[in-house]
């Protein structure tokens, strides 16, 4: 899809929303602003509840949310045929709004043929290579971020619910061990900040619980969309530890454990954070 077409689409959607606002009355939507109850589940809270008012506002409004550039690209890619088989995602999966609904609540998921967990990105590349006979996307490429964000955004508002028993159990345990293991010259574990000190300040940074339900998300610091594995790598480097690779088993298992920590929280993709 060309830039002009994308622009046109955004205008059309803006028009729809303005009409909807007129329909329900602007006052109603403003009255709801500020309540973040839907971003909590049990004792767990999304990073949204830790975010500044301005950052929340960017996420709350799909037109202010810069991640929608990638979502639009993902939507276009969904029905673009690539590879020797002449297929697109939509050839097999039709309308993503139906077929991808709930996917983000279930991933990472156990894959019998791989004998381990696979993330959404890995499933996308399995489809590309096996079904489409196309080249896999690079992990942090614009296309992969767009496709993952588009797929995950179909589950917006649905409760995180990864399966951690049965075949997933040993991988869940590995992810949990990673979360609790100290690393790097600064000798810190994920838990030191995101479990023991969530809500405390590390200089100007309010430490969150490290919930994963908004990924891929637009990070103001990055000025672009990024994967959760990118965030894991950044955290690891902050404590002066050697990061693992994008898509490594270690990070996929950690992603599973972190997903479980956020069980019941709504999928927010694409979230906005600082």
């Amino acid at each position, binding site marked *: 899809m060309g830039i002009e077409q994308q622009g046109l689409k955004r205008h059309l959607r803006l028009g729809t929303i303005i009409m909807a606002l007129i329909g329900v009355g602007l006052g109603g939507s403003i009255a709801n602003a500020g309540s973040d109850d839907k971003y909590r589940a049990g004792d767990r809270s999304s990073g949204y509840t830790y975010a500044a008012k301005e950052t929340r506002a960017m996420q709350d409004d799909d037109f202010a949310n810069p991640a929608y550039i990638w979502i639009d690209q993902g939507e276009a890619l969904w029905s673009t045929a690539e590879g020797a088989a002449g297929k697109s995602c939509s050839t097999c999966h039709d309308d993503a709004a139906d077929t991808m609904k709930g996917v983000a609540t279930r991933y990472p998921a156990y894959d019998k043929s791989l004998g381990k967990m696979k993330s959404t990105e890995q499933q996308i590349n399995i489809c590309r290579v096996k079904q489409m006979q196309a080249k896999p996307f690079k992990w942090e490429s614009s296309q992969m971020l767009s496709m993952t964000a588009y797929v995950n955004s179909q589950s917006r508002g649905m409760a995180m619910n990864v399966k951690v028993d049965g075949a997933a159990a040993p991988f869940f345990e590995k992810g949990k061990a990673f979360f609790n293991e100290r690393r790097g*010259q600064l000798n810190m574990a994920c838990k030191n900040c995101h479990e023991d000190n969530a809500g*405390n300040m590390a*200089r100007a940074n309010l430490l969150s619980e490290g919930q994963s339900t908004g990924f891929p998300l637009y990070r103001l610091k990055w000025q672009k969309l990024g994967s959760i594995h990118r965030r894991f790598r950044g955290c690891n480097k902050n404590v002066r530890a050697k990061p693992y690779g994008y898509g490594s088993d270690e990070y996929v298992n950690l992603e599973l454990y972190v997903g479980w920590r956020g069980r019941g929280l709504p999928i927010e993709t694409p979230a906005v954070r600082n």
Partner: protein
Amino acid sequence: MAVAVVAMAAAMPVVADAGVALVKYEVTGGESIAKSLTGKPGDAAKGRGLAIHRKKGNCLACHAMPIPEQSFHGNIGPDLAGVASRYSAGELRLRLVDATIVNKDTIMPAFYRTAGLHRVLKKFKDKTVLKAQEVEDILAYLLTLK
């Protein structure tokens, strides 16, 4: 200036496994390193700068301190105002060197330790966060906080 410096006859450098010389220290009573790591008095003014420096002590990341010109002090650890009234020099030295000796679950990094760390980035491998004299400088500054 306020540091009580112990003569350094006993502080002999030892060669760690990886070949990096770390000053050997003795922990007394499980909670104190009585002797200076270097035998050279700490410089409190330098220590204050190191406490602020984000790649050195970076104490403000976690602690509130009486350093009003710096905004955004962390609140992960205790406020360090008056810390020298609560702890002796030896107790503070131990907490700078390796706070996990007194509290194995602490989030506080060990500033003078290379052993037993996991997956350290290459450029920090076998290096301590602070040099021995930098530990003494920060200690000298902390001892002014009465």
